[in-house]
């Protein structure tokens, strides 16, 4: 007895396995990844063992390694950031604030930004981290 795989009849049947694999990959990336707006500058978040969860609806303040600031993906200077956050905190439902800062940024600079947010009316905030993989 000889079991020989049937020869593909034409080009289209030859690429059917390829299409199957590509569809699988497509569905994997659609389901497993999370679509998110990219940051205006590169941020390497600090690694931490913390387990706190993050709700994506919260206001996001970004702080780059070189001290650049952004609010929800829009680059701002300190005064503009303070005004924008204060306007949001004065609204009917004050948003909670997440701070995404680079792990290589000066800690004193991060604290300065936190103080700035405090003067804008933010009482509690969340510092974003990623789990330590090592």
């Amino acid at each position, binding site marked *: 007895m000889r079991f020989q795989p049937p020869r593909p009849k034409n080009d289209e049947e030859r690429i059917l396995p390829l299409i199957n694999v590509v569809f699988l990959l497509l569905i994997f990336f*659609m389901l497993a990844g999370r679509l998110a707006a990219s940051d205006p500058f590169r941020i390497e978040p600090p690694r931490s063992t913390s387990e706190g969860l993050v709700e994506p609806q919260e206001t996001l303040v970004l702080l780059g390694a070189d001290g650049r600031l952004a609010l929800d993906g829009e680059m701002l200077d300190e005064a503009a950031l303070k005004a924008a956050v204060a306007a949001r905190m004065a609204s009917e439902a004050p948003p909670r604030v997440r701070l995404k800062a680079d792990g290589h940024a000066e800690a*004193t600079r991060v604290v300065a930004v936190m103080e700035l947010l405090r003067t804008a009316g933010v009482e509690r905030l*969340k510092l974003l981290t990623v789990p330590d993989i090592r």
Partner: protein
Amino acid sequence: MSPHVSVLPRRSLANRPPRRRPLISLTPLIDVVFILLIFFMLASSFLDWRSIALNAPARATAGSSVEGAFLVELRPDGLRLAGESLSLDQLTARIGERLAQRPEQRVLVKPTAGVALQEAVSVLDRLIATGVTDLSLTRDPAR
């Protein structure tokens, strides 16, 4: 191959219904699927975000907020608690003792210039693991 087997393909060819060309060619479909695949590969992020809840520090640190709080100073060359150099293990042991008596003990972490956020976060991690709930970052009011 044996002779009676060699007859089979011809017969099956004869029995097969005439092959129709598919109405829609597969090639455009593959193009679109590839484009979608590349879009989702590039646009989706797999980072697993976590967070540390902190109290935002008040600018005027001289006041009731500092009263009775542990002030941990974070220098490039080590940790200091009330002017005394400590290792991280000594610090957590001492704060753990204090938390046993006062569970809501407030702890302030004050990084000085030259300390990266990553180091401060490592110290915060250890403090949270010790059980500190009222945690805040602060800095020198002079600077």
